[in-house]
């Protein structure tokens, strides 16, 4: 069964390393040279990007190099190894790696954990298995091909001999390292026994009994607690503050002004208060009086006026296919609509925090709930003027990422404070800090015009995208790819862009861009289908049936998820009576295809989202539980966020806490039925793709139930309550 073509290409510089540890453990590592800015241990010159360790007692351990924020890699990764190693899942445990350049990428972002880890994990697990098979064959003097790996043991059926892995470690360690190209990697759902099953998370035991796990759970001897006050008006600087008075307050050990830097994503100017307990630090903060120098006054009202003025302009042409204007002239029908979605926050349930100790030796150690610890380390080095090699970052479980913790200013803040006080410090932001100092998902206006030809097809599409930025550049999270569908699916296509000047900090927000673009495109497509007198599903299937030039997605896979969701929901067989109706939407991002059919019940303008049918193609499913969790959670996040907004006045965010930024609660949550199309493609990540099609499927159902087209979010702006 040598099927080299099934062995998807490894990086050509990848290699395997097998070694025996002093403890008698067998270590199989898979790696490739990576740029190393910082060596952690002087003795070790090589660390695998990933390794599998088999201990003499039969326990199997793998290192998880990526941070865990609930996206499930810490469970999915060892599952892949266990699958390839043919061992019982219960014998595998996972260790969280610290930040170490030699592991390569250690980021939660772009839904890349699974696709990036897929090869290394399989190679390491399969190589270890093959070594053990060879070791047993040598031990018994039998042909290798007659031996098989089964549940943690090598068996020789003809003689009835069986040897547990742990009895073969020494022989295996002395064997030549297998050639990666010769390994037969399990690749398809049909090959799997563990992958694709429902496996509970590896950290559940700790979570369910309240054991220390998260960043804010870190405790160190002599640790102090800090708060950090920054200007509510973005980019404001401290002129002066009553820190002398603050220092005298109960429990307070330190209070000082931090000048900060001009890096808008770095250490901002502020006042640090450090105390024996966090409560004392935060109580003292209520007595803090700061005079701020501020120089901007961004407001939502001004953004709206600017957008209205820009609407009449042509904007910058981003893409132009065919002849849009001529097609409009010839069109049988024209549909025009304008959409708006607001700024939103990340609202991680665990507010930003970080723990640090600055040693006299000049070494700094941190315990960080960070999606991107490497960028945090670089920021600290730059801000404190210390070498990166003096900074060690431990990765803590993260109470929600969603893109917020790709930014690292909280790490720089605690690093600065820790050096100043010379004792271990935990910086804990308040919820209000978190809401006021987010990197928000940018708002935007989308003005659409579509031409429908005699066959009822959309053959012309003009799109004016009004977004935010500065000096002609879009702000972080505010750009739209010119090849995003419907580009390539409409013969006459034009994308225009205008930019409003912005001082508000913005950044990636789960499924950056897509979380918003999915809503506008899938809502407007629905409008075009209705205007063309066609069923929204049939219209979409036809829309995906032909392309004009290159498209970013596989149209067949997109079609298949739509068909599956529709079939499961019995699309078209439901009568829109008693206010009950269905809506449909699909989206493709980060390598995965997701379609939803949503069933709502409307009572006037009050809408209850009752049931969701999800169809997903992310290639082979690794952990059925984790994958379903991402779909269920992604849908809820999409629905919840469509009901939220952050607004600005006088240069500051106006929302402060969960009483004015009300996340969805359990009673507003639908039943969600998920089905996967288990294709033979490479697996994609799933942390982001389930989000984008959620809001449009809901809004299309709202239209079917009420006749109200939701063109402005949050729902309240369109007169709908959920």
């Amino acid at each position, binding site marked *: 069964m040598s099927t080299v073509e099934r062995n998807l290409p490894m990086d050509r510089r990848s290699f395997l390393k097998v070694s025996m540890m002093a403890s008698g453990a067998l270590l199989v590592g898979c790696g490739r040279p990576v740029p190393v800015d910082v060596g952690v241990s002087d003795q070790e010159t090589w660390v695998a990007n990933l390794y599998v360790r088999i201990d003499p007692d039969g326990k199997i351990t793998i290192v998880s190099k990526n941070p865990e924020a609930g996206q499930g890699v810490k469970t999915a990764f060892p599952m892949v190894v266990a699958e390839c190693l043919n061992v019982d899942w219960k014998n595998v445990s996972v260790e969280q790696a610290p930040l170490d350049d030699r592991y390569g990428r250690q980021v939660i972002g772009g839904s890349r954990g699974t696709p990036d880890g897929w090869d290394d994990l399989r190679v390491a697990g399969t190589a270890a298995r093959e070594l053990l098979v060879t070791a047993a064959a040598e031990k018994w003097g039998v042909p290798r091909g007659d031996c098989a790996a089964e549940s943690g043991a090598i068996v020789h059926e003809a003689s009835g001999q069986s040897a547990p892995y742990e009895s073969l470690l020494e022989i295996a360690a002395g064997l030549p390292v297998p050639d990666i190209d010769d390994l037969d990697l399990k690749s398809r759902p049909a090959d799997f026994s563990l992958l694709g099953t429902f496996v509970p998370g590896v950290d559940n035991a700790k979570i369910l009994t309240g054991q220390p796990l998260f960043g804010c759970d870190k405790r160190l001897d002599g640790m102090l607690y800090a708060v950090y006050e920054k200007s509510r008006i973005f980019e404001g600087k401290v002129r002066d503050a009553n820190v002398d008075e603050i220092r005298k307050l109960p429990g307070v050990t330190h209070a000082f002004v931090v000048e900060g830097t001009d890096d808008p994503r770095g250490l901002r100017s502020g006042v640090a208060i450090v105390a024996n307990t966090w409560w004392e630090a935060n109580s003292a903060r209520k007595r803090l009086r700061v005079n701020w120098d501020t120089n901007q006054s961004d407001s939502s009202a001004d953004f709206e006026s600017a957008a209205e003025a820009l609407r009449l302009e042509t904007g910058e042409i981003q893409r132009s296919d065919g002849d849009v204007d001529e097609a409009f002239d010839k069109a049988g029908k024209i549909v025009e609509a304008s959409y708006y979605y607001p700024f939103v926050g990340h609202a991680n349930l665990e507010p930003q925090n970080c723990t640090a100790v600055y040693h006299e030796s000049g070494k700094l150690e941190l315990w960080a709930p960070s999606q991107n610890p490497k960028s945090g380390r670089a920021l600290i080095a730059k801000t404190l003027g210390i070498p990166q090699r003096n900074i060690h970052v431990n990765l803590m479980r993260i109470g929600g990422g969603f893109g917020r913790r790709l930014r690292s200013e909280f790490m720089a803040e605690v690093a600065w404070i820790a050096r100043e006080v010379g004792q271990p410090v935990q910086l804990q932001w308040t919820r209000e800090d978190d809401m006021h100092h987010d990197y928000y998902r940018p708002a935007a206006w989308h003005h659409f015009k579509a031409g429908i030809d005699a066959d009822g097809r959309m053959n012309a599409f003009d799109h004016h995208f009004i977004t935010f930025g500065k000096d002609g550049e879009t702000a972080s999270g505010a750009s739209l790819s010119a090849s995003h569908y419907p580009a390539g699916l409409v013969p006459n296509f034009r994308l225009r862009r205008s930019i409003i000047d912005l001082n508000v900090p913005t950044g990636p927000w789960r499924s950056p861009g897509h979380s918003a673009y999915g809503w506008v495109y899938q809502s407007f497509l629905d409008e075009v289908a209705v205007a063309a007198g066609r069923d929204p599903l049939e219209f979409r299937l036809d829309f995906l049936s032909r392309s004009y030039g290159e498209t970013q997605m596989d149209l067949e896979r997109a079609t298949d998820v739509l068909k599956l969701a529709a079939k499961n929901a019995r699309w078209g067989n439901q009568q829109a009576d008693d206010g009950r109706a269905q809506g449909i939407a699909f989206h493709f991002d980060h390598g995965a295809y997701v379609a939803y059919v949503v069933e709502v019940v409307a009572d006037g303008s009050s809408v209850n989202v009752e049931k969701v049918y999800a169809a997903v193609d992310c290639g082979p499913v690794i952990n059925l*539980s984790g994958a379903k969790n991402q779909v269920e959670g992604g849908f809820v996040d999409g629905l919840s966020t469509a009901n939220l907004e952050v607004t600005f006045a006088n240069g500051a965010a106006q929302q402060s806490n969960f009483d004015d930024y009300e996340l969805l609660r359990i009673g507003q949550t639908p039943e969600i039925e998920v089905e996967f199309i288990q294709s033979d493609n490479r697996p994609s990540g799933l942390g982001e793709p389930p989000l984008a099609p959620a809001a449009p499927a809901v809004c299309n159902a709202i239209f079917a139930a009420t006749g109200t087209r939701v063109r402005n979010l949050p729902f309240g702006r369109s007169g709908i309550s959920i």
Partner: protein
Amino acid sequence: MSIVKLKINGQSVSIDIPSDMPLLWALRDKLDLVGTKYGCGIGVCGTCTVLVNGIPMRSCVVPAVSMAGMEITTIEGLDPTGEHPVQKAWDEEDVPQCGYCQSGQILTASALLQQNPNPSDEEIDSAMTGVLCRCGTYHRIRKAIKLAAKNTGATGGES
């Protein structure tokens, strides 16, 4: 500062704290019981929920000094071995995503089942409405509560 005697997870402890310090911070910063989490500080997200005489309460807004003489149960005390029917159901349904809100969810669910061993969907939604989950695990919370109810009924064990 005031010295207060608290009974937490069956153990009596005496701590010297500011008289306005909420129970949450007494637990986290004075007693290192970090399973109870901070979410909003104003009693609206339910992340910090603990049981006081079996009733779910928001530890972020309750002064610790007012808790003298009460039986306080935190997530660490529900069942440290994780064998409580709600903990077991939570694992079996694999409820957590990030996991940050789950101590509040679990304690609230255990109080519900104590009062109402076989709750309906509406009763579950009503009892659990005070605890936010940013990851959106609500769908599984409902399933896990039903599973815990079923298992508790089947084994005749205490909930």
